[in-house]
């Protein structure tokens, strides 16, 4: 009964999304406020029904209702409650329902925080969001109904894929979807601007916080996903350039370009059509990511759908969204041109340079991800594009990005003179090269890549320090506390996020250079040495979990005779699917992780053990966390609220004119 209610509620949500897609857009084009006013309640109603439907599916999981096929395939009575709940988005149908729910959440957020938006504009934004909703709800109802019954019901469920039974998986998909789908708001703002043919600084100011928040979620989602891969896949890598990771990284790169381009549009009125194009691109790549991950064209833990109809449907949706929005862009963008002019040497140029580089980087990931799929689809042979390609491309593309990123803030908007600007940054620049080269020699790993990485990191840190000092010096005479408080949170956001990039580079460089590993056969009582740490194998015991049986090893880790940790890596066998799983054990430290995973048992009762020494790996996630934190600071700047309120009547007057 409950599943049928969920299904019915989804149908109602679909009907409301149709209303939300059509009525406000018609109202906006005819300037009928009664029709435009329909958008808000329709969106809120749609949210209610999607949320109710989601709750029904969750209920089916909690109560282990195996007469629902989706539940029977992805849950089990022995699965712990929290993994039964996360099992809701553990596979194709449920994760699409989560997609729809997240879209409804963003739409409702727009209706709540949009008091200052002109009615016509809001109607168009809600209309566009409604169109996206129609597409996804139709997809759910037609090809991927999660409430499909299984008659007669299964006596026991097949359980969730063991790789997904992990705390990281509780939050990774919702965070990532909040990011992906969040770009739909930026997209809807951009399309609304194209429809109205008007786009000004006020538009950028409305759009900016939404885009930044979506970017924060995407950053956090990717970070958690990377952390999950690190400890769950059992061999200590943190990024594999796997098509699925690339699918989330492409919108991130373009989204990063977008938030910077929006900054220029807000401050200087320039880059308007470029900003719109980036907004369309970021959302299209989010959809492409959904297509890649959900259609089964690539094989990974994420690829569930084996039904070709589903892939075709998302592809169709993708073509419609990209096609329609680019057509609209070609038709309307010429009206958006113009805006502030700027000199060669200016902050705009630095931001433009980074925008272009980030877009090229995104395109290079797209090439590496899609080319093998194209060849395969055309029957022209099977190839794969591995990490060496992406590394060969990313280092040269991202090096100028990082240099410009820290140089840009020293330049004035509109125009600056090159000589004084260079003199401002020269000391820090020279010092960072010296630090980078010196540090590389000091750690005994003086390769060009290590020197480059450390020099870039030093450049980011030194230039950040210099920027902070310069900023604090702007109000001479004031008390230092007052000076600190006088800095707007948007500036702190930029500063933190850029510093985060530096921390991230330190982590990536050092773990790449100094990382050590050893695969070794061990017996009880045997000792192995790695990177100055000594590991004593204390044997393996049987341990039983709620839905798995494990062989649990004990290793004592010590350094120079001082005990550091006792680690318990496991080899699990999940009962329902008979699937083996390696569960690594990690001693996490601020400057290094010691990582142990258990391989297989050999006939002579010894075990294969993999030992890893991962210096500075936590700095990778720390850097990402700083970037996300910077985004939160940037989005919470007071001026968005204040300026938005002040400009709303003026903007409304202009819109109506």
């Amino acid at each position, binding site marked *: 009964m409950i599943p049928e209610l969920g299904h019915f509620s989804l149908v109602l949500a679909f009907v409301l999304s149709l209303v939300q897609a059509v009525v406000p857009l018609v109202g906006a084009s005819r300037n009928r406020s009664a029709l435009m006013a329909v958008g808000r309640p329709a969106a809120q109603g749609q949210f209610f029904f999607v949320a109710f439907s989601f709750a029904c599916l969750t209920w089916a999981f909690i109560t282990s209702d195996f007469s629902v096929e989706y539940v029977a395939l992805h849950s089990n009575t022995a699965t712990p409650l929290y993994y039964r709940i996360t099992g809701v988005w553990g596979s194709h149908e449920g994760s699409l329902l989560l997609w729809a729910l997240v879209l409804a959440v963003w739409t409702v957020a727009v209706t709540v925080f949009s008091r200052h938006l002109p009615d016509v504009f809001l109607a168009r934004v809600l209309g566009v969001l409604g169109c996206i909703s129609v597409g996804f709800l139709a997809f759910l109802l037609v090809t991927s109904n999660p409430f499909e019954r299984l008659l007669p019901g299964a006596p026991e469920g097949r359980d969730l894929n063991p790789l997904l039974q992990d705390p990281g998986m509780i939050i990774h998909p919702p965070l990532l979807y909040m990011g992906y789908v969040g770009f739909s708001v930026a997209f809807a703002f951009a399309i609304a601007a194209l429809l109205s043919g008007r786009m000004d600084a006020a538009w950028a100011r409305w759009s900016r916080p939404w885009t930044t928040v979506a970017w924060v979620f995407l950053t956090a989602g990717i970070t958690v996903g990377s952390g999950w891969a690190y400890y769950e896949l*059992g061999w200590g890598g943190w990024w594999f350039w796997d098509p699925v990771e690339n699918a989330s990284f492409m919108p991130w790169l373009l989204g990063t370009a977008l938030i910077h381009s929006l900054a220029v549009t807000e401050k200087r009125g320039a880059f308007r059509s470029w900003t719109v194009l980036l907004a369309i691109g970021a959302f299209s790549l989010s959809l492409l990511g959904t297509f890649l991950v959900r259609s089964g064209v690539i*094989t990974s833990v994420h690829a569930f759908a084996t039904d070709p109809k589903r892939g075709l449907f998302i592809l169709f949706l993708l073509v419609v969204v990209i096609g329609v929005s680019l057509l609209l862009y070609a038709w309307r963008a010429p009206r958006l041109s113009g805006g502030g002019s700027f000199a060669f040497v200016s902050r705009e140029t630095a931001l433009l340079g980074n925008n272009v580089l980030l877009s090229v980087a995104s395109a290079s990931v797209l090439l590496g991800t899609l080319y093998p799929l194209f060849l395969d689809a055309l029957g022209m042979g*099977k190839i794969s594009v*591995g990490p060496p390609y992406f590394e060969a*491309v990313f280092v040269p593309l991202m090096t100028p990005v990082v240099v410009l990123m820290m140089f840009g803030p020293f330049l004035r908007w509109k125009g600056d003179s090159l000589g004084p600007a260079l003199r401002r940054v020269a000391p820090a620049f020279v010092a960072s090269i010296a630090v980078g080269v010196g540090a590389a020699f000091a750690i005994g790993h003086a390769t060009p890549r290590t020197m480059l990485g450390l020099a870039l990191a030093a450049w980011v840190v030194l230039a950040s320090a210099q920027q902070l000092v310069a900023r604090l010096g702007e109000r001479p005479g004031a008390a230092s506390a007052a000076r600190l408080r006088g800095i707007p949170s948007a500036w702190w956001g930029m500063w933190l996020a850029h510093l985060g990039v530096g921390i991230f580079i330190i982590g990536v460089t050092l773990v790449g250079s100094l990382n050590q590993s050893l*695969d070794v056969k061990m017996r009880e009582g045997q000792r192995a040495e790695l990177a100055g740490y000594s590991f004593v194998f204390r044997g393996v015991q049987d341990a039983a979990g709620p839905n798995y049986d494990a062989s649990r090893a004990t290793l004592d880790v010590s350094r120079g005779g001082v005990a550091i940790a006792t680690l318990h890596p496991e080899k699990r066998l999940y009962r329902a699917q*008979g*699937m083996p799983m390696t569960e690594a054990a990690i001693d996490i430290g601020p400057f290094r992780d010691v990582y142990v995973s258990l*391989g297989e048992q050999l006939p002579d009762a010894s075990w294969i053990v*993999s030992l890893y020494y991962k210096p500075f790996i936590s700095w990778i996630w720390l850097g990402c966390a700083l970037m996300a934190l910077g985004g939160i600071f940037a989005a919470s700047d007071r001026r968005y609220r204040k300026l938005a309120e002040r400009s709303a009547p003026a903007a409304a007057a202009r819109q109506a004119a």
Partner: protein
Amino acid sequence: MKPRSKRLVLVGVGVALLVGAAALVLNAFQQNLVFFHTPTEVAAGKAPTGRTFRIGGLVEVGSVQREPDGVTVRFAVTDTAKTIPVSYQGTLPDLFKEGKGAVVQGRLEADGTFRASEVLAKHDENYMPPEAAHAVEQAHKAGATVKP
């Protein structure tokens, strides 16, 4: 400078930058493509020597052997027509099993052994890597055309 010529220079610099980036990307792309070959192709000498490539198929039943050091493994990958011996040093993926599909990346040694740097098995018990499935399918097709 007049605004017009300024814009021209800006566009010129932008295009030069893009061309440079494209050259970089395409060059890296060409150098790092990893091709896939079926065991039959490898046996026929169609696979490159001195370059990394992938083979796929089924892990032959009874072929997995460990060297005394415990971490060096020898096994054979077959597409049911031809079989290629593989050696690999390291931990095998959880789902690596005799009789199941696997994809192996590495180089071909002079003695005909495939020295693997990476062994890929899949995330799901019932799932066959498409490359492995493709190799077996090709072998079956070839077999069907040879037989009268």
